[in-house]
């Protein structure tokens, strides 16, 4: 038999230096931020106080420097965020001189909608999805930046960078436009809007590496510290204030924990960790066997739940 011709490993001669993966991601994200600002009338940036928002705001500052951000930040406030998040938000806005708009669903608050009595599904729909849609409509925003990443959850893997939403803010996966090269189609019909996701191609690890190299301040809850928690349905919930109703038999313990993602405190699971700085978090991220959204209770309330929430208008 003739000798098999095989593919050989490429010649290891030095290649021209390429931009590192982080700088390539940064350049791509800045491009998206600028395209949206150039092509839309009234953009806004969703600000959730978390680490992805922190990275997104840093990228936006770079995109438009030395000018200030050419759009406001919008925080959809369920009133159930961690106290440390509100403190961080207010200091962050004061230091950065940002134009922050805060929106709360007043009807939902008046009706007393909360994560305990209404279940995470209905609570999220009223206090987050409906609040977001109302805030976007009230502001007349035609483009809303979000920090969502495609690696977070599997229905997000098909999300576009310009994600089209119908007149009701809904996402229809079969009606999304193909995205080729870096040529985004920003044409809208009446009432249509987009959500723009400049971090689409970033992973959790990329975000942490960028926070490290750029020295981006983040909420202290990401770092391990002794905190009061209860274990509920296999998840560690932090007792952030006296609104958390203890169930019979539940004991508040102090444990050294941190959070991989931050949301409403009754719905955000903590992890046991000793990581008190960003390098330690990165080491832990590499070693973990659990995805970042595992602690997000709202993702797991039904199969395909993220997909369903997005169709209804969730980010």
């Amino acid at each position, binding site marked *: 038999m003739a000798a098999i011709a095989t593919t050989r490993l490429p010649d290891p001669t030095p290649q021209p230096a390429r931009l590192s993966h982080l700088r390539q991601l940064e350049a791509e994200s800045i491009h998206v931020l600028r395209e949206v600002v150039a092509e839309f009338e009234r953009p806004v940036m969703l600000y959730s106080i978390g680490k992805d928002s922190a990275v997104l705001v840093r990228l936006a*500052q770079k995109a438009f420097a030395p000018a200030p951000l050419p759009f406001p930040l919008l925080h959809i406030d369920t009133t159930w965020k961690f106290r440390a998040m509100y403190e961080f938000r207010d200091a962050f806005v004061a230091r950065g001189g940002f134009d922050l708009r805060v929106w709360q669903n007043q009807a939902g608050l008046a009706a007393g909608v909360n994560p305990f009595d209404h279940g995470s599904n209905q609570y999220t729909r009223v206090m987050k999805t409906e609040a977001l849609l109302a805030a976007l409509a009230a502001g007349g925003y035609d483009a809303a930046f979000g920090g969502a990443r495609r690696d977070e959850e599997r229905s997000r893997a098909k999300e576009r960078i310009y994600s089209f939403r119908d007149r009701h803010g809904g996402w229809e996966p079969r009606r999304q436009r193909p995205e*080729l090269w870096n040529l985004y189609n920003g044409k809208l019909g009446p009432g249509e809007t987009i959500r723009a996701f400049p971090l689409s191609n970033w992973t959790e690890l990329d975000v942490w590496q960028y926070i490290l190299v750029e020295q981006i301040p983040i909420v202290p809850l990401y770092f391990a510290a002794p905190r009061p928690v209860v274990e509920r349905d296999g998840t560690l919930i932090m007792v952030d204030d006296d609104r958390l109703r203890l169930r019979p038999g539940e004991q508040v313990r102090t444990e050294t924990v941190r959070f991989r993602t931050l949301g409403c405190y009754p719905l955000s699971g903590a992890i046991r960790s000793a990581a008190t700085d960003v390098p330690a978090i990165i080491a832990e991220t590499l*070693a973990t066997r659990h995805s970042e959204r595992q602690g997000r209770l709202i993702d797991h309330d039904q199969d395909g739940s993220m997909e369903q929430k997005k169709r209804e208008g969730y980010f």
Partner: protein
Amino acid sequence: MWAEAVPDAGDVDAFLRAHDAKDLLRLVVIGSVDDGKSTLIGRLLYDSGRVYDDQLAAAEKASARGSTRGHGSTAAIDLSLLTDGLRAEREQGITIDVAYRYFTTARRKFIVADTPGHVQYTRNMATGASTADVAVILVDARLGVLAQTRRHAYLAALLGLSHLVVCVNKMDLVGWDPARFEAIRAEITAHASALGIAHVHALPVSALHGDGVVRPGAGAPWYAGPTLLELLETVPVVVADGPALRLPVQLVVRPGLGYRGFAGQLAAGGLAVGDEIAVLPSGRRTRVAGIDVGSESRAAAAAPESVTVRLADEVDVARGDMLVRPDDLPTTTTRLDARLVWMAEAPLDPTRTYLLKHTTRATRVDVERLVAVIDPETLAETPAARLELNDLGRVVLRAHRPLFVDAYARCRATGAFILIDALSHDTVAAGMIDPPRADDAPEVERVTAVDRRARLGQAGAVVELGGGDAIGRAFALERALFEAGRIAIVVAAAHATAIAAAAVIAIVPRADLPDGATIDGAAVEGDLTRAVLIAAGKLDAGRADRR
């Protein structure tokens, strides 16, 4: 599990430094469910440690709803479930769209565009390939190179990928037969080389068992080459000698205080402070006074960085302009010779005006000519009147404002464009600019349907009249239209379509048909003259109404 040792706390710094210098590789994986594409990608993610326990659990839970391979076996996890994203897809066992996956090793971060490979998904393949450096296609070792394989290779070549990796999958099912592998390797290599793909790599694998993907294949002692992951980690991503500088301006940064910067992402080449540059379209020359990335000032920058450039002179620059080197200019043109991948349900309509986006510049375009439809299996080009969903075609477009272009083969970023439907706003085509072809560029510019329509101020139509007095009514209608300022002519049926295509109203008497009239095949009730005026006006029904 993790493709490298997880660092201890003390090693984190060294680890981070290594990851700081990490490169980025974008690949597109093309194949159908039957080729084992989902399993191959699942294998890459799983064996490189990028699959978490709860994701695996979710996939297994979902498999109770519907798996392509049944369930109940715990020995072999159905890795294809890891990549089937949407509920409809899991239930139907299909993939309906491009999905993006991510994994990383110490050497590179990988972005995987996961695209379904059936014939009707050409548009998805084009989408996934448009941002990729490397194409990975799958061949079932039992079936060998199929028409579909040749189609995938053609798309990879069309989209300008210089590396094609052919995974000859399911080698276990042919007993790891080296002769089988070699036959497939030789055939696909010959085909891909003929397409102009510079580097073709063929690997024997079994994605289901993990052989040859991340771990070497146990069944192929005769194979001395790399595994798929080894190849992807080392394949060089070098930009061929492209243009010296292409910087499409996205927006002008002008916060006051005398600062005026032009922001954009370098599409090709690079620039340094002090360089002489030209601004298109004005052609004005000036020098680079400063390069800013955020608050940092830089001496130089190169593609693909996003920068803000300050210029030495007060030059008029706006979004859609381009900064270039005066000694290496793109072609400034309104005529585009291009290949299109048609992506919309509605076929290309050569009489319509589309929106075109090229770099940061948008314009309207007319279709001057549909030259040919390309068969992606045989590469044969045949003249055609239509370009439909998933068709590939060669066209000549005429832009309403000049564009600054390079051939796609020389520079992807300045050779690519998209077409947008002006009414539905859908993205209807992906375009790749070719150098103007001598045989496509006649000395005399042909008069097109668009030209005629513009000149005559009307669209063509075919009006058929039936009944015993059809001829008399035909000439009466011709007179009525003439008096209304329209050009119509009574002709035999054989010429009607050509006359209508030339924007003239063709009136065809058909005494052989029953009484009545049709316009473009549709029956007309009521005032025939008015109906014809509206049909021929098409875009100005209001004006016909007022007559």
